[in-house]
């Protein structure tokens, strides 16, 4: 075991994920990734409420912790302690299993997400296929939840969501295929479905697939970006849980812990599909301009970003401390915010240390790119009204699907010609 740790820390030997006999690191990564995703979901929860509030000229959570930082934890505690209600008419077993399926489906996808060339739980050679397959299993959980509730609104919500997820998956899949086609544009002419392989192909071709065969890559990416919102049931495609129509759609009858599992699954799925988009079109873990701005100087400059980001966050915290009202009522909050800032600052300083810096860089860029998508999710939610069911189907089948098919064919033709 110690050998693994030392081999990881030494500069010469790089451990590749998915190697035979590398069980130790797989277990370690499982814990890190799943813990990290859970923390990200909590952070996302806070961020969404805060950002949405600021879009809507509100303050959002302000009371629990400085600027509501502890609000998600308070919410989680509240949900855990709520009474567990199963409607008497519900199918208890199915009702019980449904949230677990959604949760498992969205968390299992992280097995193949490459946070860096060596930072992944495993590197399946059918990675992208696995990811699409597993993430589409969550529709099963939605249907089961809707059916088991034995109630009208959840049933309609479940029907809507199954139809929606199935139809958007096709456009999504076609967009993915066109990106996979691009990986085969090398001397050997062999493409790959491996998530790490796809990023390596972008590295080898010196271009993000977003800009490959411009504008084909861009169109495929946009199709995927639209389909992934529909896939995760988020605004403006949040019909299955349309609050104003179906009260809460498929999880109307759920409360407390079970409901929070749905939420956890939904946010985890959002991050998962965003990481597919990042891997396929935005160069995965690669830093910006890996080929244009080369050399040790640029490497050094870009490797400072993680530390600088954390120092920036710490600075924001300290500005918040300075602006906090000088009243005894706010003393605990001020100290808390200062402490939080200090922790962030310390992390930032640690990230400047060369060995850490080199290892953390890939993860940093990957997370930063995924973060952009997360912000877009919130932005859409604040801006768009909700589509109607038939319009949603129309967009899926009559607009996205033909375009995706066209892009796929055009990509193939262009690839052959080039």
């Amino acid at each position: 075991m110690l050998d693994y740790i030392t081999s990881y820390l030494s500069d010469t030997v790089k451990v590749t994920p998915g190697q035979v006999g590398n069980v130790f690191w797989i277990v370690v990564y499982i814990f890190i990734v799943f813990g990290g995703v859970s923390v990200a979901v909590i952070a996302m929860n806070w961020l969404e409420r805060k950002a949405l509030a600021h879009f809507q000229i509100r303050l959002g959570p302000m009371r629990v912790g400085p600027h509501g930082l502890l609000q998600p934890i308070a919410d989680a505690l509240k949900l855990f302690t709520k009474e567990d209600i199963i409607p008497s008419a519900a199918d208890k077993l199915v009702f019980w299993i449904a949230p677990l399926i959604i949760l498992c489906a969205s968390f299992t996808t992280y097995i193949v997400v490459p946070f860096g060339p060596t930072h992944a739980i495993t590197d399946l050679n059918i990675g992208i296929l696995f990811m699409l397959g597993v993430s589409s299993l969550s529709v099963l959980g939605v249907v089961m939840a809707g059916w088991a509730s034995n109630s009208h609104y959840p049933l309609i919500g479940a029907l809507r969501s199954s139809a929606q997820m199935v139809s958007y998956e096709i456009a999504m899949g076609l967009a993915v295929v066109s990106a996979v086609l691009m990986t085969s544009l090398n001397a050997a002419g062999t493409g790959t479905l491996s998530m790490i392989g796809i990023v390596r192909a972008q590295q080898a071709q010196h271009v993000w697939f977003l800009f490959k065969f411009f504008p084909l890559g861009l169109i495929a990416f946009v199709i995927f970006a639209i389909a992934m919102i529909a896939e995760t049931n988020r605004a403006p495609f949040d019909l299955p849980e349309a609050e104003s129509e179906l009260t809460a759609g498929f999880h109307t009858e759920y409360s407390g812990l079970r409901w929070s599992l749905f939420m956890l699954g939904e946010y985890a799925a959002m991050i998962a599909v965003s990481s597919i988009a990042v891997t396929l079109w935005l160069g995965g873990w690669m830093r910006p301009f890996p080929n244009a701005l080369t050399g040790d100087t640029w490497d050094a400059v870009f490797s400072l970003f993680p530390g600088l980001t954390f120092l920036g966050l710490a600075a924001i915290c300290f500005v918040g401390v300075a602006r906090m009202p000088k009243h005894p009522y706010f003393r605990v909050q001020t100290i808390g915010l200062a402490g939080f800032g200090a922790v962030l600052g310390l992390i930032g300083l640690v990230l400047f240390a060369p060995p850490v810096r080199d290892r953390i860089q890939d993860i940093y860029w990957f997370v930063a790119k995924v973060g952009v998508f997360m912000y877009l999710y919130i932005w859409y939610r604040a801006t768009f009204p909700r589509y109607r069911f038939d319009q949603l189907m129309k967009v899926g089948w009559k607009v996205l699907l033909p375009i995706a098919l066209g892009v796929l064919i055009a990509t193939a033709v262009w690839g052959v010609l080039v």
Partner: protein
Amino acid sequence: MTDATKYLSHLELGEPDKTFLDSNELIINMGPQHPATHGVLRVILKLDGEKVLGTECVIGYLHRGVEKIAEHRTYTMFNPYVDRMDYVAAVSNGLGYCEAVEKLLNIEAPPRANYIRVILTELNRLASHQLWLGTHALDIGAMTPLFYTFRDREEILKIFEKYCGARLTTHAFRIGGCLYETYDGFERDVKKFIDSAPSKIDEYEELLTTNRIWVERTKGVGTISAKDCIALGVTGPVLRASGVKWDLRKAQPYAAYRDFDFEIPIGESGDTYDRYLVRMQEMRQSLRILEQAVGKIPEGPIMAKVPKVMKPPVGEIYHSIEAPKGELGYFIVSDGSTQPYRVRVRPPSFVNLQALDIMVRGQLVADVIAVIGTLDIVLGEVDR
């Protein structure tokens, strides 16, 4: 006889238990507890999948017997009760009631009072339309306009609060005029609001008017023809969106509306989008009226000579005004005593709600929500 039925016939299975899953038709109860029925409206929906086969409104969950209460109160005492009907347009309710009783008593409010009444009523119309826009957009899924409209509605409510101490159920007018003189800076506050409002309305329109999803969700949804509107007695912006140029402020001018120059915006197709446009235009027209009114409030008394004990002569009166939601009428029967013999209110929301069924038949569940929003009903007024 197929093999399967032959095999099963001796079992005498009989009909399986019928549940809602066995039929194509689905009966859904929307409300009275539902986030989008604007209070406690209960709509029983008959659905085929997502398609609406028919609706039935069940009302009365907010019934407080306002009309009955009137029979046991003096004319003055009943005045605050009318504010509780359409609580988002309380000023309009009060105006209608006060003018009806004034007609019955054969007195007339002084011009200054009438101008104050017009200003407050138009501010209230803006507030009511803003609330409609926010909730309507929220029902269709756009969250953000709600907060913008509430931010701007707050300015109006602040003016109300400064004027009469109340924000929502204002009881701003009295029979014979107004009780309160305008406070110092009233005109300045209103002017400030008029100056800032157009850009705010532009802001809402920017979010919605050309928004593709908004247009798709509202165009051709809940269409109602002018003929149907008139047959059902539908009034207000719903009627005007169907192309009928009918506004009581122009048709039977009351208060001081004769003095102002404004237009009646009308729509063409009578769908939800047209109703949205009509109301947005109406907000701008209200600003126009306010602009003309606020500069030239005449000097003079604000209260006419009203008898201490009001005993209207035996008779009956029907007086209606253009409330933000449509024609708000009061039918008052006097038996010569201090209390009305009967007060019947013609609430616009109640009458407009009738149109729900023909507007949503054959459309989808999501459209029911859009149409309830576009009808702009307030359940306090529907049930009274």
